[in-house]
């Protein structure tokens, strides 16, 4: 956190107001982004999605690195509030309901700061052990007013829970089992892409999942429009 002395801060306010009186231009215009997320899967509800505008050097996850506990909690149990708490003063959105297959949700985020123009979004595929989808630090700086960008999001494995598919290990409606568990027992302990689920319909009789829960890439469509 940068600390201003009160004197410098006062100067900054004065300068700002002086320029404002000299010019009708808005020095730091509010940039608003509308964000539309569509769940493209067959039967994988997405946990209430979370989104945040942030600096370039921040991320919710990174391929090849171990998941933070906040990411683990989201990927295993669907609660993304811990990810938002990592930068609680940033422009952010917390979904209020799961995003069901075939449905879309739209919300807006705004900022006056060019340094907060990277967008991340995350949500769990809740009929899995620790699969999630989203986007990781999309650069919005070059998106001009009235323009839209479309992204297709792949599915990640948090690397925190073995994809056992066993009864009692999956929080979504396909099982109603456990969400977050701090123990880490995956064969690969870093964040990667997801290999998909097997399911009982694919010769894994112990699986609590059915063929209906299978998914492929991409899992989400995300449309961002600058206003």
């Amino acid at each position, binding site marked *: 956190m940068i600390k201003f002395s009160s004197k410098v801060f006062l100067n900054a306010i004065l300068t700002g107001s002086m320029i404002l009186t000299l010019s009708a231009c808005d020095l730091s215009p509010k940039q608003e982004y509308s964000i539309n997320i569509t769940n493209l899967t067959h039967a994988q509800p997405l946990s209430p999605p979370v989104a945040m505008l942030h600096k370039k050097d921040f991320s919710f996850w990174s*391929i*090849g*690195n171990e998941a933070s506990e906040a990411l683990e909690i989201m990927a295993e149990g669907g609660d993304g509030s811990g990810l938002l708490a990592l930068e609680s003063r940033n422009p952010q959105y917390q979904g209020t309901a799961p995003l069901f297959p075939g449905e879309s949700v739209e919300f807006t985020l705004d900022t006056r700061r060019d340094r907060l123009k990277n967008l991340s979004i995350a949500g769990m595929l809740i009929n899995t052990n620790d699969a999630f989808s989203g986007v990781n630090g999309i650069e919005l700086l070059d998106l001009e007013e009235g323009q839209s960008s479309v992204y297709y999001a*792949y*599915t990640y*494995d948090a*690397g925190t829970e*073995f*994809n*056992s*598919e066993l009864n009692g290990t999956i929080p979504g409606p396909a099982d109603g089992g456990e969400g977050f568990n701090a123990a880490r027992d995956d*064969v*690969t302990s*870093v*964040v*990667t*892409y*997801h*290999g*998909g689920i*097997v399911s009982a319909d*694919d*010769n*894994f009789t*112990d699986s609590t999942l059915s063929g209906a829960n299978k998914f*492929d*890439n991409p899992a989400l469509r995300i449309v961002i429009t600058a206003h």
Partner: protein
Amino acid sequence: MNKKILLAMALSAAFIGNASAQELNISFTNLTHGNHFTPLLFSAHADDQHIFEINTAASASLQAMAEGGDISGLINDLTALTADISANPAAGLMAPGQSVNFELTTQEINTHLSIAAMILPSNDGFVGLDSLSIPTEAGTYTYYLNGYDAGTEVNDEIINGGAMPGVAGIPADPLGQNGTGASGVTNSENNKNIHIHRGVLGDTDTTGGNSDLDSRVHRWLNPIARLVIEVK
């Protein structure tokens, strides 16, 4: 735009095209959750050259790479073509999630990039890139790569150490998550040309079943690798 500006642009473009060696900063990531890549091979070569092409039969060198991870044949082929080569930049097997970053300097004539490495465990699966036109304008470019099947070996999913070209079976699972004693998923290879890999089946029987692979661990979805090229 007036003609004069267009002409100036054409001239400057031609000038950039004639510039000599290109310096590339390459970053490559194994995106899979349960598969290693054997030593990677990167090469910049002329636009009419290929180490593999979809819907054609694999060369003997490509087959040796896809079935056993041996890139020496491909290196010999590419050296004869005066390609610019980076062999094994990750210094051995590349684990799930692992990235490698390195520089590749290309000669003027070598305008296209190809990549290959075996997916382990698989019978003859490989991650590949066939002759991508390397961007010449400064910037950072991201590409996602798919898994291919060389079409040279039956995908029986039996781990028996078989790594030599023409020898059935899978060399090993570096993750150590495989079973043993499988009877084999199939004994035919319908498409003997290079094609998109259909993925592996696996099972959860560690002492038998059809497959020595674990269906919960060794399956993958495309894309399986990320390539980032920074053109300076």
